[in-house]
């Protein structure tokens, strides 16, 4: 080999380099092309969705007449309209669980779409929503999955006999025998909370029904899987080629969530067809938090058969997973995506699993980063920690004793996963080595010695990537599978195109959300073609009418590295082989002697014998007749990658759920502040084996992002519902996304055991820390507090409850500021207060009971009508933080004791929520005039409840102040004006207003 050749071969390939991204130049200058930035056809209308304030109610009637009379409003669609022109979405179980894109007959969760308004702009559409009168008959709701599956629980779907809509049990090996022979049985129950990773960009859909072609042309920031495409087409009652779905170049994050835009794609498509114009919808943040999507919450009972030395011989688990009000495709994915990996990183041969699917009156759960992994490992890895505690062993030693040993890969797990490669002991020893574990222990000793609270946690997880399309079939018994046909495999597609000047373009089946796939694809293709990544243009917009796609397409379940990337590699390799043959003929050498490098095709042995890349590529276009025999003209290759390892489930229900399996070992130290009960992560080390890293800069970016999402699950984020199903975390002031000030440093480490099942050796890597971090922190807190039951998220309130007890008073010296609220209390607002008005009680009484005067006093009151003696109907505009809306109020007065006191009760309803309750107002004479004392108790639901206590408080302050200022003004005026109201008319609206927005004064 000559020196030049040796030198070139030593040149590092592009794959493997920590290359900054192609995508960044546009995104850093405000030139991103997100869905809401894209131009829309002239005449496009805007849609807004009216949503349910009730967790469970019959829709008695929807009256949209007043909304339709507003100028600019084109149409209002309801569930009844939708039902006539579309079919319910397909579901994975056989029970009748029909879901349309708008609620039909009943609502089943707060935030469920009830009506769609199409108008000339969004402001008008939102105005119109306030003028739609929906008559609901509230029903009892069921929120906790354990309560939901109990006998006699209210049924979420009355046509299904139980809220436990599907159950399957699996046995692998002989767990019964293992448990009988075990030295110990260690058991635990864990509960994984509801949360989401709330991408910063919400859902966007632009739908244009093209009547002439009978085609729905839709642009949306949908992320895949494109298995949802047939689901949408079926709902629209069209063949798939009539649903042209396009995704934009940029998407503002997704993390699984933007699959759940699909019902809205159908809804906007139907709306566009109904009005004959394109329709655009941009979801807002309140809608997103309320009802876009969520990870499923899960209650797991798990037990292990353990030998004296800590060796686990069998696992038994019962998973009750709560998917909310509907089973949205592809649910119950999280229960089955991890199925093969149920024994985690451990060599356990006997396994029993029961998967139970529960429905409740909460927003439907769906895809989310981690997808079943965080739930599984919370159970398994908490249990391993408990085994150590109960057997008096070191936690790390129990992990070591049970890890799958090196040298046995590919390794078949009890439930059928084929772990491709790994060296778990090396990864674990690498992480704890160099004194890292010793340092953590020393730190723990020091903190404990000074009376502090410190704990160390570990978590070992296997991270699957690129799902087998057959995994969900495991839900069905083998006999049924045989009848309906086996699903299996996973198709990845990518296309490399070279134009007549040799310029290269790549398209692929990945719907990006910020991962940097364009950069990685350009590295892969550059290596094959002897070009630089800068030479390659990658366009990852998807157009289902024109581009390569299949049901597995999209960006989810970490399928890029083991899937799409491989397809691009294969497509580029084909182009390369073709170019080698063309060049060989032109250079007059053998194809074996040709190499593509430095933008040239040249002889390896005589590099001076060379042609430019463009020249060779041009031949395929300009001189197709001159091509060597057997070489097809043109230069465009679409490669399909479908690895054979993704077999269908076996007769005995074993399933290789994914293609690659990475490994993560995490170790952390946490300290709990004894005064604030805050959990502070002192040190966090995360060791990864993701096979070959194609771009370490981007790989670590994914890991850092997942780490903070895992941290959020462990400590901060939770969707909270009260017992009646009111949603209480509807703004970013209530749903706590961590910020830069909350982030501990992360120490990342890597080993690489390349996957033998993909030509690039790369595994998925973006979800692992979402799986490992929550349980690692939970284990550390368990260690710190020596406790068994560790609820998530570990908010100060929960840690306080663990340490001091739920009802205990705050620690001495804390004062009232540390008083914790129980979220269970929801927006049951109670309170009292007083206000002075400088007029006599009789005068105030008169004003309060005069509808005309009151109308002027009540902030935002449009109308106040006396419907019956002591019964009022009013319409008011109220604002709570970012939310503003019109409400219809009904108030009844009783126990009138003029001019001293009155009792009032009533209800309030509007698109932003509902409220009901009552209170008492008292008037007493003072030197300066009248002192009003009020006292109330009110329940608020819907958006108004979701936006949270502090906003309600703030709004209450303003409204009450405005009211009394108005009252003072009005009373002054009334002294000269002639009172035209009878003394018997009254209002309790004020106190009731306060009741709605009342603070804890």
């Amino acid at each position, binding site marked *: 080999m000559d020196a030049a050749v040796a030198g070139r071969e030593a040149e590092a390939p592009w794959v493997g380099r920590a290359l900054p991204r192609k995508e960044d130049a546009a995104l850093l200058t405000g030139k991103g092309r997100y869905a809401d930035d894209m131009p829309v056809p002239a005449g496009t209308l805007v849609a807004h969705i009216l949503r349910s304030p009730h967790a469970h109610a019959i829709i008695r009637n929807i009256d949209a007449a007043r909304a339709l009379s507003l100028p600019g409003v084109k149409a209002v669609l309801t569930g009844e309209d939708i039902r006539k022109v579309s079919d319910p979405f397909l579901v994975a179980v056989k029970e009748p669980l029909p879901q349309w894109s708008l609620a039909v007959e009943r609502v089943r969760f707060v935030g469920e779409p009830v009506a769609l308004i199409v108008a000339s702009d969004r402001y008008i559409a939102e105005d119109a929503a306030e003028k739609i009168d929906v008559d609901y008959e509230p029903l009892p709701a069921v929120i906790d999955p354990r309560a939901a599956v109990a006998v006699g629980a209210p049924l979420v779907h009355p046509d299904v006999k139980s809220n436990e809509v599907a159950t399957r049990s699996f046995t692998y090996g002989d767990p019964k025998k293992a448990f009988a022979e075990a030295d110990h049985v260690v058991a635990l129950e864990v509960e994984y909370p509801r949360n989401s990773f709330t991408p*910063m960009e919400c859902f966007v859909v632009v739908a244009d029904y093209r009547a002439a072609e009978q085609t729905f042309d839709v642009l949306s920031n949908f992320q895949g899987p494109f298995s949802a495409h047939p689901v949408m087409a079926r709902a629209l009652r069209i063949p798939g080629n009539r649903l042209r779905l396009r995704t934009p170049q940029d998407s503002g994050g997704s993390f699984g969530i933007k699959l759940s835009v699909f019902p809205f794609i159908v809804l906007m498509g139907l709306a566009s067809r109904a009005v004959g114009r394109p329709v655009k919808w941009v979801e807002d943040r309140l809608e997103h938090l309320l009802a876009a999507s969520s990870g499923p919450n899960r209650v797991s009972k798990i037990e292990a058969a353990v030998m004296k030395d800590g060796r686990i011989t069998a696992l038994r688990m019962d998973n009750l997973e709560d998917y909310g009000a509907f089973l949205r495709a592809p649910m119950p994915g999280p229960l089955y995506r991890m199925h093969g990996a149920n024994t985690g990183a451990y060599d356990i041969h006997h396994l029993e699993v029961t998967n139970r699917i529960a429905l409740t009156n909460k927003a439907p759960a769906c895809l989310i980063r981690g997808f079943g992994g965080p739930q599984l490992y919370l159970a398994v890895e908490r249990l391993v920690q408990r085994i150590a505690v109960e057997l008096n062993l070191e936690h790390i030693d129990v992990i070591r004793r049970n890890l799958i040993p090196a040298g046995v890969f590919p390794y078949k797990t009890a439930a059928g996963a084929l772990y491709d490669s790994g060296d778990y002991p090396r990864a674990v020893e690498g992480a704890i080595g160099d004194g890292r574990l010793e340092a953590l222990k020393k730190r723990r000793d020091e903190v404990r010695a000074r009376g502090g609270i410190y704990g160390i946690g570990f978590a070992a997880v296997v991270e699957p990537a690129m799902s087998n399309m057959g995994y969900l079939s495991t839900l069905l018994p083998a006999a049924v599978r045989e009848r309906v046909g086996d699903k299996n495999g996973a198709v990845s597609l990518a296309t490399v195109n070279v134009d007549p000047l040799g310029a290269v373009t790549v398209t692929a089946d990945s719907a990006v959300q*910020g991962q940097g796939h364009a950069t990685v694809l350009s590295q892969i293709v550059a290596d094959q073609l002897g070009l630089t990544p800068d030479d390659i243009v990658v366009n990852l917009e998807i157009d289902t009418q024109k581009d390569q796609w299949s049901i597995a397409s999209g960006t989810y379940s970490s399928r890029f590295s083991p899937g799409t990337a491989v397809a691009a590699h294969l497509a580029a390799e084909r182009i390369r082989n073709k170019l080698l043959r063309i060049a060989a003929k032109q250079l007059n050498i053998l194809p074996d002697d040709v190499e593509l490098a430095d933008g040239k095709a040249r002889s390896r042995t005589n590099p001076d014998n060379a042609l430019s890349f463009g020249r060779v590529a041009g031949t395929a276009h300009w001189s197709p007749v001159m091509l060597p025999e057997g070489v097809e003209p043109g230069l465009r290759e679409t490669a399909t990658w479908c690895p054979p390892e993704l077999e269908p489930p076996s007769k005995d229900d074993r399933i290789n759920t994914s293609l690659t399996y990475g490994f993560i070992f995490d170790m952390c130290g946490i300290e709990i502040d004894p005064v604030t009960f805050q959990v502070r992560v002192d040190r966090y080390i995360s060791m990864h084996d993701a096979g070959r890293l194609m771009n370490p800069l981007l790989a670590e970016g994914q890991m850092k992002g997942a780490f903070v999402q895992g941290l959020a699950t462990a400590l901060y984020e939770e969707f909270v519902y009260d017992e009646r199903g009111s949603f209480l975390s509807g703004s970013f002031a209530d749903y706590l*996304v961590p910020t830069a*000030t909350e982030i501990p440093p992360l120490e990342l480490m890597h080993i690489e055991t390349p996957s033998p099942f993909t030509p690039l050796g790369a595994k998925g890597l973006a979800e692992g820390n979402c799986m490992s971090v929550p349980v690692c922190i939970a284990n550390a807190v368990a260690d710190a507090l020596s406790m068994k039951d560790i609820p998530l998220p570990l908010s100060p309130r929960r840690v306080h409850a663990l340490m001091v007890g739920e009802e205990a008073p705050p620690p001495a010296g804390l004062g009232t500021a540390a008083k914790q609220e129980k979220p269970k209390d929801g927006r049951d607002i109670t309170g009292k207060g007083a206000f002075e008005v400088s007029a006599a009680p009789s005068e105030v009484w008169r004003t309060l009971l005069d509808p005309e005067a009151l109308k002027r006093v009540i902030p935002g009151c449009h109308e106040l009508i006396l419907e019956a003696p002591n019964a009022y109907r009013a319409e008011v505009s109220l604002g709570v933080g970012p939310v503003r809306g019109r409400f219809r109020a009904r108030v009844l007065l009783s126990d009138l004791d003029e001019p001293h006191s009155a009792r009032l009760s009533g209800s309030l309803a509007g698109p932003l929520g509902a409220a009901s309750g009552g209170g008492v107002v008292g008037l007493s004479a003072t030197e300066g005039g009248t002192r009003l004392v009020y006292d109330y108790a009110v329940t608020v639901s819907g958006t108004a409840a979701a936006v949270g206590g502090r906003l309600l408080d703030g709004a209450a302050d303003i409204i009450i102040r405005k009211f009394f200022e108005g009252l003072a003004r009005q009373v002054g005026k009334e002294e000269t004006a002639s009172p035209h109201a009878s003394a018997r008319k009254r209002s309790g609206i004020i106190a009731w207003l306060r009741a709605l927005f009342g603070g804890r004064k």
Partner: protein
Amino acid sequence: MTTLKPGDLARIDLTLNGEAVSGHAEPRMLLADFLREKCGATGVHVGCEHGVCGCCTIVMNGVAVRSCLALAVQAEGAVIETVESLAPDGTLNAMQEAFRKHHALQCGFCTPGILMSLIDLLRRNPKPEREEIVHVVGGHLCRCTGYSNIIDAAMDAINGTAK
């Protein structure tokens, strides 16, 4: 003083990234919507419309402002800078370059707002400490990056080592 009613259109003249622009807006129109829809400044992103996420941050009259919390009519006569102003000749500025080098953005949706807040910080204090940077970035939500690369990028840009 003119009183505007719902439905009335107000004419708004302002300076956007050095250029005079004008447009009409209803009194209730948000400044963020006005900049995006009427002025084409789609680098202004809307992530929450309730003042928490910081995606919509712009610099108005020399101060970083959340444009979802301001009305378009309030910007009459204002001098507004958005992310589109940061690389006038197409060359990334030091902060943008540092973001690229440190992979401080993934989806990029939060990025324009964070850049504007950092620019605002640097004008007030050209050599901020790490804590100040964390504090300023702490006023923004980013779901992708986990923040650490953003802090590293800002530190790098400030120490002049970004290129």
